[in-house]
Structure formats: structure tokens, C-alpha cells
């Protein structure tokens, strides 16, 4: 029989500490939807997505009610569209994005990821067309998310793609200027992208994935923070143990939800992504965990070490609790989605350079960074190159989701709304990277990529 303190602990985690399942993401392969005629390909895509995912939202809500655990998002990821669209004779891929948007609306999911291309070593014709379509695709659709992988440890960095993405981000921001460049919040540039990540905006259904799969992203920064409050002043050994135990408990819930969703939808379970994903709500912040460890304000010296401990302990605890772990798995450090990070920017303890250092030891990179609208495309590209280099050399995923907010300058405020939150505009280096970016070509893969 369960003990009352155990029941109360779970109850408290959900009710007070905002423990939730962040997303149930259904991955759907669209590889059999290719067709020489784009219209037929899109019809096949729409039919397949709406057929496979028709019960996704309903089953998610059912599990939420039965187990009393909030499941915030139900989402879909699909095969990178460049691979599907390139069999067609279409030149313009925006129509493919519209189809994804319509399918997402039909089944009631709030985001669909996979308007994507993997170009870490070079472009196919389809990749070129997809990249060209990204700004308009993000402008005319509401729920479509886009991602581009520009580097891997094995292949090096495609600097032509990096340079293009600087321009693409600028253009996306300009097209969506009415909503403060919101389109850029739905575009992630990756190095070493995972193919089973359930979190948006970077989710897509990788080419080695099965026909259809259920991946679950957990969360729970509030729960970890609350657990650390009970060990104030204790050593790092105790700190790491406490994070591990909490991560274990959180992940067990994720595993239960994933198993149930998989059974009820009759779709195989893929992975649990053990990420601490913050939300703008007070008490759901990764920055506050770092501060709980003894850092006065996130970004102060010690922050990188604190984040490294957190990220590693989350993985160690979570891995034991799930049969399959994948995706990004670690701590997320978005700015606009984390109330503690926002405050740290405002107080001046945190800046883009410190965030870059933090991205060396956590699961993602520069995430949801609002910068001045007049930031040059080459500077954005150079920021991407820096993050890609960190990922490439350290054998880890890094990502950049940066928003050059039109007509805003440092000190202004931008409101994205909902889970995307709000943010002050961060300052970016004024020194030029133009000559570096215009070189073009590829940065070779590092020596340690030659492991065979």
C-alpha cells in the first residue's frame, strides 16, 4: 500500500510545483508520400497525418484526466519536408507548409514540426528550395515549425548554410514584423540534431525512425527547485543526489504516460526526452534552480558549473527510470520562456556571451533570444557558427533560435505570448563578422570525428 507521504508528494509536485508532461509528440513518416506531382504529394501527406493522428489529442486528454497529470501539448513531427517535396516538380515549397498547417488544425495539435532540411554536408535541390521557402512558410502558417541542421561532428559545419540562415532569419523577422518577428520563434538552426526530439520548434521525424512513433517530453523545473530547497547549504554530492532522485520520479511519470499513450493509440513508444523545460510561469524556471544552488542571479560566476551539475544529474536520474531515453534530454535555457532568465537579463547578470558558455554544458543552445532588429544577417550567422562549433567539437546538440525583433533596440521589451513568453531585447556585439561569413564553404570535421 502506498504511504500517505508518498501520495502527498506526488500531489504536491503536480499541484504546487507545476510538474507536467510537456508534450506527447507523434512522429509520422511521410516517406511514402513523395510524388512527381506536388498536389498529389500534399494530398497524401494530409490524408496520412490526419489518419494517423486523429485520436492523438483525445487520447492525450483522456490520460490527463485519468491520471490527474497535466499534458500541456499534443504535437506532431514529420519527415523533413525537403526529402518529401523534392520528388515533385514544384519550385515553391510554401504549399507544403500550408498542407502541414491544415493537417495540424484538422487534428487539433498546436504545433507540427518538420518543415526541415538536413544540410550539414551540402544541399540537394530540394534542400535549396526548402530553405528558400522558410520565411514565407512561417509567415503564412500558424502551427508549422521549421528546423535546419547545419553541422555535425562527423561532417563539419556547412558555412554556406550558416550564411544563408542569417539571411533567412532576417527575412522571417521582417515578414512577421507585425507580430514582433514571431516567425523566428518557430525556426531552429541545429548542430548534431537529434532525430527523435519531441520538443518544438525543433522536432522532426528522423529518417531512421519507424513508420509512426510516440515520443514524450517531460518537464518539471519547479519540482527540482522545490527538492533543492530541502538541502540548502549541503554539499554538491547531496545536491547531485537530490536532483537525480527527483529526475527519476519525474521520468517515471513520463514513462507511464508514454506507455499508456502508446498502448491506446496502438503506436510504438519511441523515447522519453528528459528535459527540464521551463515556462514563463513563476515557479517553473531553470534559472531559479541555479540560483537555489547558491548563485545570487543566474549568469553570475558559477552558473556554468551549476548548470553542468544539473544537466548531468537530470540525465543520470532519468535514464534509470525509462526504458528508452533520447531527444535532447537535459536542461533548457530559453530566455523568453523562463521568468528567472528574463530577470537575470534585466538585472544585468546574464548576457548572450554567458549564455553561449552555458550552452556548452546543457542540452540546447541560444534559445529564444530576442536581439535588436538591425542586427546584421552576418552577425546572426556568426552567432550560429559559434554555437555549431561548440556542438561539433563537443559531440553534442546545440541550437540557435534567435529573433531579430524589427524596430526594437536594446532595452525594449517584446511580447510573444503564451508559452513563448516575453523578453527584453539583448545586446549583441557591434563588431563585424562579415568577412568571416562571406568566405563560404565548409569548416572541416574535427579530428576526433575519425573514430573508425
Amino acid at each position, binding site marked *: 500500500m*502506498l504511504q500517505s507521504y508518498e*501520495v502527498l508528494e506526488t*500531489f504536491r509536485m503536480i499541484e504546487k510545483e507545476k510538474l507536467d508532461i510537456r508534450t506527447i509528440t507523434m512522429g509520422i513518416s511521410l516517406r511514402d508520400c513523395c510524388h512527381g506531382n506536388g498536389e498529389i504529394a500534399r494530398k497524401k501527406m494530409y490524408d496520412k497525418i490526419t489518419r494517423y493522428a486523429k485520436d492523438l489529442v483525445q487520447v492525450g486528454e483522456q490520460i490527463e484526466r485519468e*491520471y490527474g*497529470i497535466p499534458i500541456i501539448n499534443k504535437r506532431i513531427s514529420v519527415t523533413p519536408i525537403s526529402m518529401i517535396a523534392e520528388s515533385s516538380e514544384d519550385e515553391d515549397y510554401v504549399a507544403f507548409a500550408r498542407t502541414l498547417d491544415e493537417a495540424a488544425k484538422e487534428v487539433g495539435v498546436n504545433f507540427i514540426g518538420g518543415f526541415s532540411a538536413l544540410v550539414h554536408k551540402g544541399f540537394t535541390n530540394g534542400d535549396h528550395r526548402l530553405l528558400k521557402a522558410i520565411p514565407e512558410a512561417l509567415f503564412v502558417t500558424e502551427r508549422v515549425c521549421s528546423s535546419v541542421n547545419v553541422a555535425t561532428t562527423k561532417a563539419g559545419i556547412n558555412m554556406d548554410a550558416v550564411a544563408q540562415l542569417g539571411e533567412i532569419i532576417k527575412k522571417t523577422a521582417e515578414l512577421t514584423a507585425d507580430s514582433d518577428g514571431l516567425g523566428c520563434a518557430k525556426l531552429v538552426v541545429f548542430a548534431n540534431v537529434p532525430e527523435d526530439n519531441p520538443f518544438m520548434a525543433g522536432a522532426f521525424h528522423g529518417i531512421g525512425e519507424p513508420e509512426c512513433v510516440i515520443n514524450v517530453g517531460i518537464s518539471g523545473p519547479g519540482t527540482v527547485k522545490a527538492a533543492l530547497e530541502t538541502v540548502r547549504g549541503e554539499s554538491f554530492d547531496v545536491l547531485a543526489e537530490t536532483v537525480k532522485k527527483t529526475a527519476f*520520479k519525474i521520468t517515471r511519470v513520463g*514513462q*507511464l504516460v508514454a506507455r499508456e499513450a502508446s498502448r491506446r493509440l496502438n503506436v510504438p513508444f519511441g523515447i522519453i526526452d528528459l528535459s527540464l523545460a521551463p515556462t514563463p510561469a513563476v515557479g517553473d524556471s531553470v534559472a531559479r534552480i541555479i540560483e537555489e544552488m547558491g548563485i545570487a542571479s543566474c549568469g553570475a560566476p558559477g552558473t556554468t558549473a551549476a548548470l553542468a551539475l544539473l544537466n548531468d544529474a537530470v540525465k543520470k536520474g532519468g535514464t534509470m527510470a525509462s526504458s528508452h531515453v533520447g531527444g535532447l534530454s537535459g536542461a533548457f535555457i530559453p530566455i523568453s520562456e523562463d521568468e528567472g532568465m528574463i530577470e537575470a537579463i534585466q538585472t544585468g547578470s546574464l548576457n548572450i556571451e554567458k549564455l553561449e558558455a552555458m550552452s556548452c554544458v546543457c542540452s540546447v543552445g541560444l534559445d529564444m533570444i530576442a536581439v535588436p532588429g538591425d542586427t546584421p544577417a552576418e552577425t546572426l550567422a556568426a552567432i550560429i557558427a559559434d554555437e555549431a562549433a561548440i556542438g561539433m567539437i563537443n559531440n553534442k546538440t546545440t541550437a540557435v533560435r534567435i529573433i531579430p525583433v524589427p524596430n526594437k533596440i536594446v532595452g525594449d521589451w517584446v511580447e510573444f505570448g503564451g508559452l513563448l513568453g516575453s523578453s527584453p531585447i539583448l545586446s549583441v556585439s557591434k563588431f563585424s563578422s562579415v568577412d568571416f561569413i562571406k568566405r563560404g564553404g565548409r569548416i572541416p570535421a574535427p579530428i576526433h570525428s575519425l573514430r573508425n
Partner: protein
Amino acid sequence: MKAIITVIGQDRTGIIARVSTVLAEADANILDISQTILQEYFTMMMLVDLADIKLSLDELRDSLTLEGESLGVSIKIQHEDIFKSMHRI
């Protein structure tokens, strides 16, 4: 299925009686019950068997929520597996 019902709120007379009545009317069988007062808050947990209930789980949840509102306490019903998965290996 078995579920755990958690009742938390200001202590007053008749909480157990009224929650039990709702459960009895739905043919939900109480398997275990424990109750304590934590910092003046009434905290009760019940393990119930819902194998033979007459209502759907959603309907039972609605009637418990309604009863909770009239008692001024919060009543939640959750599948026991969420607690077991977290605390039992």
C-alpha cells in the same frame, strides 16, 4: 481500475461521510483509507476499486468535485498507477 482519492482542505465535520456517500452511490468500493491533519489542513487519502462503478470515471470525478465545492475542500481522483510508478520500482 483502482484509484486514489485525495481530499485536502479546511477540517470540518462530515467530510469522510459525504465523500463515502458519493462513492457508495456510484458503487465504488473503498479498499483503504487514511486521514490526518497537517498544519490545520484536513488531508485524506482513499484507495478505491472502480471495477464495478455505475458511472463513467468522468462522471464520478464531476460528482466528487461538486461535493468538494460544497464542503469547501479540494477532491481529486487519480489512477493509482501515477503514484505507484513514481514511488515503487
